């Protein structure tokens, strides 16, 4: 009714044109649509705002939430682990979701203790040659000091410094073990768009890690002689690793050392000849000892076989029991076995000969008692025949017919067998 009144009143005063009504309606419609679109955009923004709070963590990561800048949660709940459904956090500025790579290792090569090399020398596989009188330049040549051999101190006439110089190269492998401590205490630049946090960490930590390894190597190496540094590489690396870890712990860095490896080590190139000679001497020493051991082994094997050393030791051992000694004697070989075997053979022979002779006498005795002359003569002639059959030379002499007899000179060779040999062969 009121609308109608207005309408009527309006019509009476100045009736609006039909175009104006249409325009107003259009504007009204446009506004409605605009509001609707705006509303939808706002709803979309709210949805986007809320959805942006969903976060996931990869298996090699851990995460912390900063709520108004402070790490959120208590105890172990402060460190978020990967799970099958996402985490939801309030978007910035309320919360910040910080993901920290904990499984990935940070590898760092440390060349601070290596001698200076040009790029060309680094690429070359040949060892650099340096004349003996060229000093090390402390500004460009890296090295560490090692203590001297204790006996070397006695060799010196004066109280000179007692240390040696050693070049070495190292590799540090570490990882983040305590994400909270690492995040709180270790400085890294903010991650820029397109960067990975692990790359930022590697870049920003290079200086710190290198310094810590350098310091640990300097501190550790003075405790070893140069020979120990070569021979006990594992011990030295472990020592350095412990010192590195100690420093990381002291800083509460949350970094764990996985390993410290000494990847290369050498004496100064200026003394290369002396060290090479020393190595050759060590090899010669080993060869000489090995030769002697071979000689000893062969000698004992030839003498008594594999049980030689054991038997020799047992002969000196007053506590060695008879059964044990007998077992060794029975396992004997070589020359000793031969001697024992010969003795055994002699024993058997002498017994069997005695037995045979006794039996022979017993058997022949009755016949001998009947015809002694004939039996003795037969045995005697058989024996002479046996002797002469085996003789190398037999010279028969016709007895002289005169009473005076005759003198015969016979040249008797000491070795009758040589007579039969050809003349040429004898001359040879």
């Amino acid at each position, binding site marked *: 009714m009121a609308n109608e009144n207005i309408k009527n009143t309006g019509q009476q005063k100045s009736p609006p044109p039909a175009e104006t009504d249409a325009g107003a309606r259009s504007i009204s419609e446009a506004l409605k649509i605009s509001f609707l679109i705006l509303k939808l955009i706002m709803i979309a923004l709210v949805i986007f705002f809320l959805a942006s709070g969903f976060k996931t963590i990869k298996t090699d990561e851990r995460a912390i939430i900063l709520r108004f800048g402070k790490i959120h949660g208590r105890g172990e709940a402060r460190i978020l682990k990967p799970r099958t459904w996402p985490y939801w956090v309030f978007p910035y500025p309320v919360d910040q979701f910080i993901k920290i790579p904990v499984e990935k290792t940070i590898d760092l090569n440390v060349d601070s203790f290596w001698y200076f090399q040009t790029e060309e020398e680094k690429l070359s596989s040949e060892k650099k040659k340096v004349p003996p009188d060229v000093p090390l330049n402390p500004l460009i040549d890296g090295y560490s000091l090692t203590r*001297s051999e204790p006996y070397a101190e006695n060799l010196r006439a004066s109280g000179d410094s007692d240390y040696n110089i050693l070049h070495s190269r190292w590799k540090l492998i570490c990882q983040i073990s305590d994400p909270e401590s690492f995040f709180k205490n270790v*400085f890294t630049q903010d991650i820029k768009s397109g960067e990975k946090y692990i790359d930022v960490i590697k870049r920003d930590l290079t200086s710190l890690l290198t310094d810590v390894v*350098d310091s640990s190597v300097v501190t550790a190496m003075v405790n070893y002689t140069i020979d120990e540094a070569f021979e006990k590489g594992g011990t030295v690396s472990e020592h350095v690793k412990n010192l590195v870890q100690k420093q990381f712990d002291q800083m509460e860095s949350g970094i764990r050392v996985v390993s410290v490896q000494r990847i290369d080590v050498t004496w100064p190139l200026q003394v290369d000849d002396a060290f090479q000679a020393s190595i050759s001497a060590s090899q010669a*020493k080993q060869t000489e*000892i090995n030769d002697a051991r071979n000689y000893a082994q062969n000698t004992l094997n030839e003498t008594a076989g594999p049980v030689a050393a054991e038997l020799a030791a047992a002969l000196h051992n007053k506590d060695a029991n008879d059964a044990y000694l007998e077992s060794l004697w029975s396992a004997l070989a070589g020359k000793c076995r031969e001697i024992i075997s010969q003795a055994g053979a002699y024993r058997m022979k002498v017994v069997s000969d005695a037995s045979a002779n006794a039996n022979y006498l017993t058997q022949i005795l009755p016949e001998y008692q009947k015809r002694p002359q004939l039996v003795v003569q037969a*045995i*005697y002639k058989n024996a002479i025949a*046996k002797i002469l059959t085996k003789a190398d030379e037999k010279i028969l002499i016709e007895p002289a017919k005169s009473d005076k007899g005759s003198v015969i000179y016979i040249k008797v060779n*000491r070795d009758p067998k040589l007579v039969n040999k050809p003349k040429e062969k004898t001359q040879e």
Partner: protein
Amino acid sequence: MKSIAVAILVVLVVIVLVMALISFQVRQTESALVTTFGKATRQITEPGLYFRWPPPIQQIYKFDSRLRVFEADLTETTTKGAVPIIVNTYVVWKIADPNKFLNSVGSTSAAEVKLHSQMNETQSNVIGQYSFSEFVNSDPKKIRIQEIQDKMLSSLQNSVREAYGMEVKALGIKQLKISADVSKDVFNRMRGERNTITEKTIAEGKAEAVAIRTQADAQKTELLAAAQARAKAIMGQGDAEAAKYYEMLQADPELAMFLRDVEVLPEILKDRSTYIINTDKDPFSLLREMPNLQPKK
């Protein structure tokens, strides 16, 4: 209804704007200093949300409180006993007292300048108290390099904390070197030591080899002697066993000895023998004439 929603939105926007003006966050990695009309009125070292008066009443200065590394230059200094050494030291530090740091230092780069100066002084003072043989010594018990570093750390911590509001968490000697001229002397000594070791090694090798050979020869002699003794015992047993049969020879000892002679004589004369025999001996008499045999009646 619409007007209520708009009102809420406006209120929210206003709240956000007001909060932005009157609050600030201090992150876990930061510390902060609040100044009121330029005067430091609050120092914040714990993270969280804090309120403030809007500028220009209060200003907020934030500092990154994480660890930073600073390396000094390679420096030549002298130990007790005036032995020159070249050292390079690094420190790990952080801002511990924002107020003091802002007033006395101001920035990280300025802090490093201060640190450099302090490190040089500390290095010189502490190293000057130790002789070079306490850095490196043939007797490991006399080495005090860790103690030297700890002392430098302690000294530096005290000086920079009080003066600059900085905390030094770690310090280490990352290079310990000698001058170029001294390195030549070291090489000569290393060469001499190595030559001594070489000669010693050769001599040890020879001595050890001789010892091994001698021991083997001695063991050989012992084993042979033991084997011969055992053999003699076995042979003795054989002779003893054989003697039991001699009783049987008592039946006719003369015949027994004859048989024994007949047995051993061919054995004795079996090699390298020449016999010169008259043909009047049997059986060679056959060579001279036919025997005159008559049948026995």
